[in-house]
């Protein structure tokens, strides 16, 4: 278990100073696949480097199973990193790279050889053992970097955007591979990415970061379906933002009035906004339906219809102002095709709309 308490990191001094991390506290459980997700410059890599020991925080505590990590230099921390650039040693072979950590730990030669073989097998690189790292492909380098970091059996594996240098197809394969490795080794993974798909497909839990702060922590489904605030809703997936009036709240359930005047149920985080105020609600495009205007929550006129193969995006100009996107899956036997200019109505089930904190 990693406990990060009140970690702050300020680069520079005085007027030129930059706060990379402002009071971050997280608890990461053992054997968890934990993802730090956020746009570039949000502080996720800085946080990773604080755990690895390459950056000293300005304030705060980091402990691993109760042991203070910050007083330890990087080479004594039981934590290994998969670097964004892989950082494979160019003057060593694949096998030598993988065995490096064990060699530095002073393990006996026999043990190193065995572990290296195991690791090569784990990442399916046995044939490449004696190649130089410059003679293998990007995807293979990635796997060597993984094997190298896993070989010393660290308590925690830190992964700094490890998939960003790979092409799309390979990236998708590697997601499954990483998930498999995490399950097989039982090591805690702390994974940094700016790619929401990576975060959603692999993680047990995700921490969404922005401007050096944690905005929301939760499981992938939780984060996607119930974004707590505008930034999270916007950053992950597509979303429709609607102004609404909050009439009353009861637990996580909220009664709201939409701009069309219609009232409906929505979901709100506990301890959120007070009743009677203006709020914003978020609705995912695929969570809404397109019907006739009759009985619809939000009537309007159909604008652009954009065909995407698997689904179609309908841009609706709402009568109450603003626009709303509805995403519907295409069916092979679909007869009726809606046309631009048609009168339509947007609906979504009670409890689908999420009241945002801001």
């Amino acid at each position, binding site marked *: 278990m990693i406990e990060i308490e009140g970690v702050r990191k300020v680069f520079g001094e005085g007027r030129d100073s930059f706060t990379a991390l402002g009071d971050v506290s997280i608890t990461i459980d053992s054997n968890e696949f934990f993802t730090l997700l956020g746009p570039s410059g949000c502080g996720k890599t800085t946080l990773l480097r604080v755990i690895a020991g390459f950056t*000293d*925080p*300005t*304030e*705060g505590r980091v402990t691993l199973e109760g042991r203070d990590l*910050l*007083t330890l230099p990087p080479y004594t921390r039981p934590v290994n990193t998969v670097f964004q650039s892989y950082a494979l040693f160019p003057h060593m072979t694949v096998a030598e790279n993988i065995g490096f950590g064990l060699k530095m730990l002073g393990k006996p030669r026999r043990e190193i050889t065995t572990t290296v073989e195991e690791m090569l097998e784990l990442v399916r690189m046995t044939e490449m053992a004696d190649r130089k790292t410059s003679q293998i492909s990007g995807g293979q380098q990635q796997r060597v970097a993984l094997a190298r970091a896993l070989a010393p059996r660290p308590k925690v594996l830190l992964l700094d955007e490890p998939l960003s240098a790979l092409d799309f197809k390979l990236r998708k394969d590697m997601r499954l591979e990483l998930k498999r490795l995490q399950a097989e080794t039982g090591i805690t993974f702390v994974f940094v990415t700016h790619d929401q798909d990576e975060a959603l497909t692999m993680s047990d839990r995700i921490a969404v970061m922005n401007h050096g702060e944690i905005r929301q922590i939760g499981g992938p489904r939780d984060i996607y379906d119930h974004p707590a605030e505008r930034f999270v809703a916007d950053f992950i997936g597509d979303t429709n933002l609607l102004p609404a009036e909050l009439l009353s709240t009861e637990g996580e359930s909220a009664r709201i009035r939409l701009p069309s005047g219609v009232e409906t149920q929505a979901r709100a985080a506990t301890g959120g906004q007070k009743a009677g105020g203006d709020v914003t609600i978020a609705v995912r495009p695929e969570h809404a339906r397109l019907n006739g205007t009759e009985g619809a929550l939000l009537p309007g006129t159909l604008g652009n219809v954009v065909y995407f193969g698997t689904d179609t995006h309908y841009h609706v100009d709402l009568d109450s102002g603003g626009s709303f996107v509805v995403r519907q899956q295409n069916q092979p036997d679909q007869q009726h095709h809606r046309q631009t200019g048609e009168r339509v109505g947007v609906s979504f089930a009670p409890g689908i709309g999420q009241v945002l904190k801001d």
Partner: protein
Amino acid sequence: MTTLAETRARATRKARALLLAPAMAILVFAASGPLIIVVIYSFLTPGDYGGVEWEFSLKAWFNVVAERDFFTDELRFADAHLSVFWRSIKLSILTAILAFIFGFPTAYFIATRPKKQRDIWMLLIMIPFWTNLLIRTFAIMELIRNQGTVNTALIGMGLIDEPIQMLFTEFSLLLGMTYVYLPLMILPIYASMERLDFSLVEAGYDLYASRLKVLTKIIFPLVKPGVVAGSILVFVPCLGAYVTPRVLGGGKQLMLGNLIELQFGQLRNWPLGAALSLSLLAIVMVALLFYVRAVSREGESNV
């Protein structure tokens, strides 16, 4: 937490000091330190057989530019020194210009070769540069002496009867220094030329510029920092040249370096030699300062 950071910072500082120590010790002992002694010596009185008397005097500095007539005790400019200063500066500027005339097209030529060839062409420029300066000067000397290759060939062809006196003239110095320092002009120009985006040149032609206009209005302004750097790199060593004027000038065409040497050799006036050295250093520093300012201004305008 702050103590942790402080301890690390202190360790870093200590390691840095230890790592720098050997280089700094050698440089202070055999480069910077002695310069300070030169400053001191320039304010002392010359000894009778070289060396100095430990007696304060401004005479050396005074003698750099002026002298007292031996008979009439009249004050006048030290023509001998000033003419050497003038020759040094004049020849250095001319050398820089000549080097530019040859160096610019050469750098351009190399920069427009296919990428794989460029390094080889640059190696061809570098090889003469890293070979012994004395040998290269000597090669020029063999070429232009009265019994040298050029004169022998011209006489052999019956074009001239008497050898043309080329050695020991300002021409020979100019030729020699251009030959010796040409790579210093090509190197920085090539460096900026290589980064030149040739689509800019294409854009120039697209917008109706002639070849000459493209050269003067597009290519030259873009590689100007390299030209400035090259000019300074040629100018500075020319100014302090010693070997080339000694071999090709033969004691007739003195430059500053030779004048300084004379003070420590035959003329036994160490304080004057020291003052002349520092004057040379001052001119060089002004040139370097000019260069640094030109480069940093260029850097700002590029931002």
